[in-house]
């Protein structure tokens, strides 16, 4: 038996063998001349799509083409928060579908992605925020999603070190989703890649899509840095680069690309055992299994493809952290980085066909697409296989902007940098 299946047993056996039997987690595939489906983008969404296409929809001859190394995009640079605490009916069932898939992920793909349901607590600091969270929590409950409202005393019991007594905006309570939490980001990419690979999907790294070939209004394949690859269907899952790739097919999207930064502190003995978001500033935090405080805040706020941010946001985020947790004053920042957000005009995603035949789009995830990964993959696979939206993704249509059926959780309107 090869060391393909992961388990404690295989681990022990390999230990005895000096760890010489491990196989590559996924093959280094080279492009074939054509596939039934080519997914552009080896991020979480692209890889999950390929996996579900093969696993649930029985498709074969699938390729994922990735311009760099898989997981080098946002799936590998996000703050790992998963939750389904949404308000609007277009969103809740979809994110809850994702949450359920996370809950069974390890067994499904035989990879420990460390899905950790340690809870997510959104703090509120005034009555209006509280009422908005009650509305949201109730919406979740009506959709069968877990939600609880904590008052200030309950929050204090849970996280006694937050700033309760000397705060500019005192904590009044929080909305807790206990099933929310974190998932080890890289493992999601690697786990889906490995699982898809085992079902025969070609994962082609260092292969940049440079053009989309369209003949008679119909997509026939993609031009890449490694040559033309023919495709029955092409699915775009390029996150922050969606507009650039869609432009290859002459499409303009309701999307702007923005930078979001993330931060990690030096490793510390664990003291935060859930995800906390500050309601009076731009700050959210969790503590990784290595001990680093992983945190973030607002987007930098201007169009960018640079994958790095600027100082004002660094200051804004860190002062939010200090306002919330004055005990971290002497803790040090270890590293900060950025990712490219595909900020849509209403802050919600798009999983839909495009006006170009056989070209499909999965985009507009803003800063919240990591939590969506399994459902996004499933629904995109469904759309690619069946040519109709999955039942939990019926709201994510491209024409919703024209119709006015926008899904605007924050009520910020058509300005991507405000979502």
């Amino acid at each position, binding site marked *: 038996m090869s060391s393909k299946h992961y388990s404690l047993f295989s681990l022990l056996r390999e230990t005895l063998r000096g760890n010489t039997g491990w196989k590559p987690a996924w093959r280094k595939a080279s492009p074939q001349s054509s596939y039934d489906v080519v997914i552009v983008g080896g991020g979480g969404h692209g890889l999950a799509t390929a996996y579900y296409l093969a696993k649930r929809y029985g498709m074969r001859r699938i390729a994922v083409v990735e311009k760099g190394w898989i997981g080098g995009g946002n799936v590998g640079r996000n703050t790992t928060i998963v939750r389904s605490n949404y308000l609007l009916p277009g969103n809740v069932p979809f994110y809850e579908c994702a949450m359920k898939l996370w809950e069974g992920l390890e067994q499904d793909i035989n990879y420990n992605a460390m899905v950790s*349901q340690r809870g997510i607590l959104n703090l509120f600091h005034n009555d209006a925020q509280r009422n908005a969270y009650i509305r949201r929590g109730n919406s979740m409950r009506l959709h069968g999603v877990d939600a609880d409202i904590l008052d200030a005393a309950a929050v204090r019991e849970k996280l006694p070190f937050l700033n309760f007594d000397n705060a500019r905006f005192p904590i009044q309570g929080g909305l807790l989703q206990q099933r929310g939490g974190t998932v080890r980001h890289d493992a999601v990419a690697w786990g889906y890649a490995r699982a898809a690979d085992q079902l025969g999907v070609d994962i082609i790294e260092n292969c940049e899509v440079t053009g989309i070939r369209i003949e008679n209004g119909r997509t026939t394949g993609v031009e890449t840095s490694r040559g033309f690859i023919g495709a029955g269907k092409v699915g775009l899952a390029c996150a922050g680069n969606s507009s650039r790739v869609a432009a290859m097919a002459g499409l303009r999207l309701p999307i702007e690309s923005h930078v979001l930064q993330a931060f990690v502190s030096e490793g510390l003995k664990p003291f935060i055992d859930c995800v906390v978001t500050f309601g009076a500033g731009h700050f959210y935090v969790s503590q990784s299994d290595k001990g680093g405080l992983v945190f973030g805040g607002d987007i930098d706020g201007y169009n960018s493809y640079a994958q790095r941010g600027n100082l004002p946001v660094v200051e804004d985020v860190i002062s939010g952290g200090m306002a919330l947790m004055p*005990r971290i004053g002497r803790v040090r920042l270890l*590293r900060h980085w950025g990712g490219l957000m595909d900020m849509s005009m209403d802050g919600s995603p798009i999983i839909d066909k495009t006006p170009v035949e056989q070209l499909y789009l999965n985009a507009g995830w803003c800063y919240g697409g990591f939590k969506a990964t399994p459902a996004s993959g499933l629904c995109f696979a469904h759309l690619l296989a069946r040519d109709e939206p999955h039942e939990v993704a019926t709201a994510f249509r491209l024409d919703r902007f024209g119709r006015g059926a926008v899904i605007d959780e924050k009520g910020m309107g058509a300005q991507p940098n405000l979502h």
Partner: protein
Amino acid sequence: MNTPSKLSPPKRTRANGVDTSKALTFTFDGRAYTAYEGDTLASALLANNVRLTGRSFKYHRPRGILSAGPEEPNALMELRTGARREPNSRATVTEVFHGLSAASQNRWPSLAFDALGVNGLLSPVFTAGFYYKTFMWPACFWEKVYEPMIRNAAGLGRAAKEADPDHYEQANAFCDVLVVGSGPAGLAAALSAAETGARVILCEQDYLTGGRLRAENITLDNKPAWQWGEEVTARLRAMPNVRLMTRSCVFGRYDGGTFGVIERVADHLPQPEENQPRQRYWRIVAKQCVVATGAIERPVVFPNNDRPGVMLAGSVRTYINRYGVAPGRKAVIYTNNDDGLRTVTDLYQAGADIVAIVDARPVPSPLAQSLAQQTGAFLFPGGRISNTLGRLGVAAAVIGNKAGKDQRFACDLIAVSGGWNPDLALTTHHGTRPVYNEQIAAFVPSIKAHDLHIAGMVAGTLTTRDTLHEGAEAGRKAAAACGFDSAGTTELPSAGVDETYAIHPTWSGIDQTAPQKAGKAFIDFQNDVTAKDVKQAAQEGFRSVEHLKRYTTLGMATDQGKTSNVNALAMLAEFTDRTIPETGTTLIRPPAQPVTLGAIAGPNREKHFKPTRLPPTHQWATEQNAVFTSNGLWQRAQWYPRAGETHWLETVNREVNTVRNAVGFCDVTTLGKIDIQGPDAASFLEKLYVNAWQKLAVGRARYGLMLREDGFAFDDGTTARLSPTHYVMTTTTANAGPAMQHLEFCHQVLWPELDVQFISVTDEWAQIAVAGPNSREVIRQLIDPAFDISNEAFGYMAAAEITICGGQQARLFRLSFSGELAYELAVPARFGDALARRLMEVGAPYGIAPYGTEALGVMRIEKGHPAGPELNGQTTAHDLGMGRMLSSKKEFIGKAMAARPALTDPRRPTLVGLRPVVATDALVAGSHLLPKGSPASAEYDQGWISSSAWSPTCNSWIALGFLSEGPSRHGEIIAVHNPLSGTVTEAEIVSPVFVDPEGKRLHA
């Protein structure tokens, strides 16, 4: 100082950086030791023969001091105690002060005996990425068993438990030329730039300038090189155009020539002096920058290369020359380049025995031969160290000769040099990856930027002489780019002997055929990543350097791979049959060194996290014992409790009743006020608001609603016309800023042809609402007799400029948010306080009382006025029951998109009032509305409650909400679901106007 003799450190010789006349005492793990001023914690521990300083992250291996700088991966400690506890502090850059207490971390029960050292035994299982392959069964065990186990072992030091008691500052500085680093390159650069007259800032992270000049036993102008450094430093300090910042680390290069810098103002003191910041975060904006950050030495990878006593060769020299401490008495030197051989000389001169010189280069080095002869050391040309022995530190080295035969040598120090890596972090922060330079076997900066110059060791330049020249040249060029030209050239000292640096890289440093027999060969010390892990990762397909990093955690520790990255990727290249350039290197990100979070936040903490805006009556309200609440940045009185009132609701009910039955007043200054003037002012308003404005009469006000361009409601308020070309607009408190921005956008970008001017007058006018049936009488007491405010002369929605109190200029508006007869009276802000006091006086006979935002809120709900919760950015004019306000006769912002089908769908939830069937059943805002009798499930969800209150006027709970087809459902009983609290309440759908629907009161 009276210290026991057994504590006195060995005599320091030649130390150019410590003052041996000033002894200090500090403790490490509770034991007291002596140090001198100028010592780092590391140099002091070494001087006291303390070698074991920490435990590694994963295997809890004993670790000692590896380096003498910020790259230190091993000697991390908790400094200070209590609220000032500072985890993960590198002993190598910690200045000792009298009374410093340091403690080792990540060990239990003690540093010498660490129970988790057993992890080392499990290391064959704990291979790269092992956790991805297991802990999956049973599923529920992850959160309950496995993860807690992992988290129990996670982390290094402990964050303080209490709020940081120190304070921090931010500051800005600007210059022509920023020079980073004060080694020979940086000093020469700063000098040559400064001599042109350019404004120069020199930042050095160390507390002393000089860089390697202090570490090396070399001369400049026939004097010890460090003396030249001190002279130049003194000259720079004296120049008026130079700012010299020591203890200041440039941690990041950001866009637009902006650099982030942390100055450690008081870390070398027991605690900051009163009011002194602990650290200061600088934003430095430089037109040009010279990066002269030097280089970091690489360790060599060999089995058990992590024992305390294995130290970087260059750091050994630093301890000898700068601190006067020889880190060992019997030394083995292991090098693959000439630079490492200097350590032989320095150690020998410091009185140490040189046991062996292992020169890994295949071609024997003549320098090594002569040094061996001179020192009597065994020489192993082409040799390697195949193992080390010792329990809590090195006791012997096993050295293999060229032929592979092993020999064992007792020693207490192994000085290693695998070559030098330019410290090029700042050159990569914009994403430029460095390129590999074969000659020095290291990555060098590749960046080409018009505002960045690179000089010295960081550029890969090796000799002191070249470094000096390159520095001076860089400084000159940088200054010239700012328009400063110098006639002369900077005078540079003459360097002594030319150093040589012939390197032959020894990447794996281990016998590839049997790498792990002897023990683990560490690459990343802190994260315990070994050569074997790299090999396994490659085997599992993690061939990209970035994959390798993430799969093995190599380079992700507090040192960010400063000593490990290049060794690792070179080894990966070997394992995957690629060249080093093909393999590439991982991206370096800011901060160049870990920076204190408190410093970045600066003074913006606790109560000063954000500024506070105070309305003009704040002081008065404080005297009235008001309870305050934040409304954006504003502090507003929420209610005014009186003696005997036991619950806030009692107070609020009284305030509401006072307004409804007598008269109350409330400071509404916080509403945005914009003065709009110009021939096109009316046309401008027509564009902004959905409703018509041209025909509004002078002296009248009108309610207006603004949409966003996407057709959803943006803001509302009343706007009054003071003259044909003059209006005053009010906005909500929350949208005062955004509205101003919106107006500027409309004026400058959309309709620049409109001749209109506007300016905020929010702060200019103290505006107080006076409401209640007695309000007219109260206003009459104030108003000058010339003005007639009878209902006939000054009806509902009238507006006038008047005088009060004997000539005081004021504005009076007859507006009502409460639904009562009401006015808003505005006076210049400085009179706001006096106006409140006067209202109390003149209103007393009429039963006046102040009311706060809570009563205001209750009354606006009673009257059905939308506010923030209704104008939440998701609602349309139609939803708010204002669909008919949308003018069909004119163009306005949002008109086109408001007509989209989904926005005009009659099934959209629309504003309604709700009244519980049982008056005392609370209606909770945020509850959802479902048809009576339907299951609590989203498919039956028809709306929600946006605002609710106990209405003392109706003697019932009341609420505003949005309900599908609401207006046609008045009278229906609906179920109000609040599953969060498990309650379902029945309520009747009613008109949103609960009080005085005919508007009699406000027209009274």
